[in-house]
């Protein structure tokens, strides 16, 4: 079994908390009171099977406000990152580029990213064309998913995909997974540098 961390980042209100909620609990609350809950760092555990490997993922949901950036960077020690924008918000799309550079700055080498265009159910309020999503995808070499926490579109698929990407990226280490005295097959190599990246 493998354990690692995935991270969701985005602007506020693009629906990241809802994505997580839908994925782990299969629930969606449209009246989600996000302000209080989202100011900080939250996480949930999930178990999925990819390629016959049972993977336990810890998914982090971080506050997106700019002023917390210096703090949230310590949480960026994830193996995979979801970059989420809201298809009904041009602004959130514009900010993705900013997030990409932030991630590149703080995240460990080899971190896997995928791009998520959320709220795909809001077709009538659409501000960001699908082409735009794909364009970013090409530019940064990321996979792209159009999702909706509301209608449960592509939620499982996107989480599974990112997990797969992380596993692939760490295939070597995985092949060398050792039985550990901790009685747990966590990916030692994968977690190894966490503290170091975390320290300033």
């Amino acid at each position, binding site marked *: *079994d493998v*354990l690692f961390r995935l991270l969701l980042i985005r602007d506020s209100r693009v629906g990241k908390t809802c994505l997580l909620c839908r994925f*782990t*609990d*299969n629930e969606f609350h449209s009246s989600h009171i996000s302000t*209080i809950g989202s*100011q*900080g*760092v*939250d*996480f*949930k*555990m*999930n*178990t999925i099977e990819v*390629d*016959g*490997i*049972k993977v*336990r993922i810890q998914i982090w949901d971080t*506050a997106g406000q700019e*002023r*917390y950036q*210096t*703090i949230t*960077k*310590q949480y960026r020690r994830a193996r995979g990152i979801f970059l989420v924008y809201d298809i009904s918000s041009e602004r959130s799309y514009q900010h993705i580029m900013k997030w990409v550079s932030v991630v590149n700055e703080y995240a*460990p080498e080899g971190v896997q990213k995928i791009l998520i265009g959320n709220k795909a159910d809001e077709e009538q309020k659409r501000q960001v064309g699908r082409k735009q999503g794909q364009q970013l995808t090409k530019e940064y070499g990321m996979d792209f998913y159009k999702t909706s926490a509301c209608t449960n579109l592509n939620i499982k698929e996107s989480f599974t995909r990112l997990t797969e990407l992380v596993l692939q990226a760490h295939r070597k280490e*995985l*092949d*060398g*997974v*050792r*039985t*550990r*005295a*901790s*009685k*747990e*097959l966590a990916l*030692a190599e994968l*977690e*190894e*540098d*966490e*503290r*170091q*990246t*975390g*320290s*300033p």
Partner: protein
Amino acid sequence: MDQSVAIQETLAEGEYCIIAVQGVLCEGDSRQSRLLGLVRYRLEHGGQEHALFLYTHRRMAITGDDVCLDQIVPVSRDFTLEEVSSDGELYILGSDVTVQLDTAELSLTFQLPFGSHTRMFLQEVARACPGLDPATRDPEFQWLSRYRCTEMEPLPRGGNSALGTWPGCARIGGGRYPSGEGRWGLEEARLQGWALLCVGGVVMELPGFLLAEAAAGADPWGSAGGAVRRRDEELEEAAEMSAAAGSRDRDSSGGSHLDNLRPNGKGLFVDQSSRGQDKPENLLTRQTKSKLEITDMVRSSTITVSDKAHILSMQKFGLRETLVKSYLMQKEEDYTYIQNFRFFVGTYNVNGQSPKECLQPWLSHGIQAPDVYCVGFQELDLSKEAFFFHDTPKEEEWFKAVSESLHPDAKYAKVKFIRLVGIMLLLYVKQEHAAHISEVEAETVGTGIMGRMGNKGGVAIRFKFHNTSICVVNSHLAAHTEEYERRNQDYKDICSRMQFCQVDPSLPPLTISKHDVILWLGDLNYRIEELDVEKVKKLIEEKDFQTLYAYDQLKTQVAAKAVFEGFTEGELTFQPTYKYDTGSDEWDTSEKCRAPAWCDRILWKGKNITQLSYQSHMALKTSDHKPVSSEFDIGVRVKNEELYRKTLEEIVRSLDKMENANIPSVSLSKLEFCFQNVKYMQLQVESFTIHNGQVPCQFEFINKPGEESYCRQWLNANPSKGFLLPDSAIEIELEIFVTKTMATKLNSGEDKIEDILVLHLDRGKDYFLSVSGNYVPSCFGSPIHTLCYMREPISDLPLETVRELTLMPLWTEDDGSQLENPMEIPKELWMMVDYLYRNAAQEEDLFQQPGRRLEFEHIRDCLDTGMIENLDTLCILHHSVAEALLLFLESLPEPVICYSAYHNCLECSGNYTASKQVISTLPTFHKNVFNYLLAFLRQLLENSEKNHLDENILASIFGSLLLRNPAGQQKLEMAEKKAQEFIHQFLCNSP
């Protein structure tokens, strides 16, 4: 008690123990106390390196004598010390923190005490870890070389007299420690126990497997080769063993290793030919029973995570797995259905003969091909050799005879083979079912001579067929008519002593009764009682088996509930199977002239079992017994893969949900805090409430990355940590209080009322609280020269001006021509002194009585707004003003006698002329203030009859205010005395 002090005593120059914590080193079952000290070493060229020193200790360590160095782990690039999350387990509040120390070479587990000290320790260690920046040099740890061979070196200083207790050679483990010798601390990392490793679909069973991860030397490259080589040898040896076990030669030579097919807990390898495809390095088999210790390690590279291969780790036996299993069991009906399979069960006492005739009449004539064959023999070999050496050529002969006589319409795979002296049991299944057979185990129980030997007893094979567990027992019970109670006892012994290993070694062994289906066959040896031989033979001739059956011992014993409780037997419609003259159908004509009996029987227990036939086979004449057979339709639980996957997914999901619900979570009544108009030394409080959810939790404000404390100096959270029971709440007060140490920077804009607090829930979320506000600059905390340049009250000045003036260097006064004419002394000082001079010159105990806090706030506001007249109109205690004056002097960032002049003053204390000389070197404004204050104090002394002040009192009060030690807080009595003396001179002498 800070135990780092004790450690420090043992360290050499340049080494510093940053923090120490007492923990428990866990190795297998052993628990040993260790002191963990994080030691820093400053390198000559700058930079620093760290190592974790592990000590044994004889009590709460107080001095260096109490500790004894055990091991050193350099904090290298590959060093990690991480909390081990107890996955899936409920976190127990206040329980120890388990941490895992890993380097490339070793792996240790510690339990550290719960609490903030441990947290601090972990933070310090994290901070000590060298970054991954390739630009920085790899740590070399040359300073540790002194510990490697201490016999050559003097003991570390610190007077550790316990020379004998100091290890001759402390172990330095892990890290890229550039040394060839490196087998230190290896035993520690071993884990004894069972491990099941699935390699390319083949399970390796390694009893007593030693996880010797750390067995590689300190140099990860140098010694890794050796380790790999050792492992390969191991594998080769193992492969040889399994090849031998699998060869037919070995089988026919009578080895008891016929069970060359290793169950893997999941599927089954059908025949030997498939083994040829297994590369030797993928196959590592061991005899389950010979619990050899494999002392070498099996390193990661042999384990490949292929598409289908599961890694059955120790975690498999963790709580989470156990939960999944038991939920699966509970919901079995949701994803399985019953399907009938045809079982053939046969038993044959062969009286030590070799097979002489074809067994087909018994095994396959007149029936359709069964799905499963369970074939048992007794008295396979009656020779002494078989009895004493457990070796018999008959084994192979009968095995062949059976294999050749199985039903020709189907292909069968042998699943398992087990023999105890003459009692043998064979299990075959149709080839297409092989993949659905799992968890195959076989055991034997001897109940013969001395109650242990194998001339009597039972053998059994247990397995899972699809989702149903099945146990087949073949027994040969005690002989002789009168011995039915022995037979009953043999049955009980077999039941109680027959125990099968489980895949999960943490579970208790399985017994026969724990199976869904039990098939029991054998020569049970129960006889026909109370009838003489002739009567028996007559009833048989008449085929009146019903009457005869009434005298059957097994029937009567079962009816009396003395044996085979819960078992069923079909109606006996065939004549007794014992005892015939060999080679005939004639009853025994020997001297003993045994009475006929139904010795050979087949019974069953379990649900969904239908017996289709129960018969003997007279055609076979090899033995003095006739073989018996029975066909069954047995309803087996078959998995619907689709439904199974769904159920499993649901279970995993619900466990995740449970786990997520167990992550502590709180709600906060407020997340943004704005403090308006924060003033010097005026407490402002904002409170909020933490409402806990359903999980007990520990909360704490934690440091942000790279910061020393959880909040800025002027802020405080009260309480800053605590526990919350489910559904409880706690009020937290955020207090702002600006004192002299922070005021100057707030005035200058170098600091702002702005902070983010991180409220951390242990094992849970983090919440960010943002604090903002504005500070109202005050004369308190402003430098003397700054105030002199402020002709306006400070509150009338734009913030920008206050900032500029505050940042103005001390010595700019002379060329400050572009600025307005400065005042000679700060007007605020003048206001206070003037007030005291006018109103309180004769006040008793002036400067010795405390003022009132609220009045101080008025005074501060008056000074900052320039409303001097308010001081007079407000009814204020003189003592409050006197205290404000002292506070004013205390909060000056640069004391009246500048830091740079401090030592000069102390030196010439007692020499008045020289002292005056020093004063004259002060910056003008400081000199002015000094003279002004002293003049005022001398004025007070003139009223000493009224105010009872004298030179000594004033010198002691003002000495430490006007002269402050640049080194900071340390109070040296001598220096203080001299400072007082210095002021004293000026009080006694008029200038």
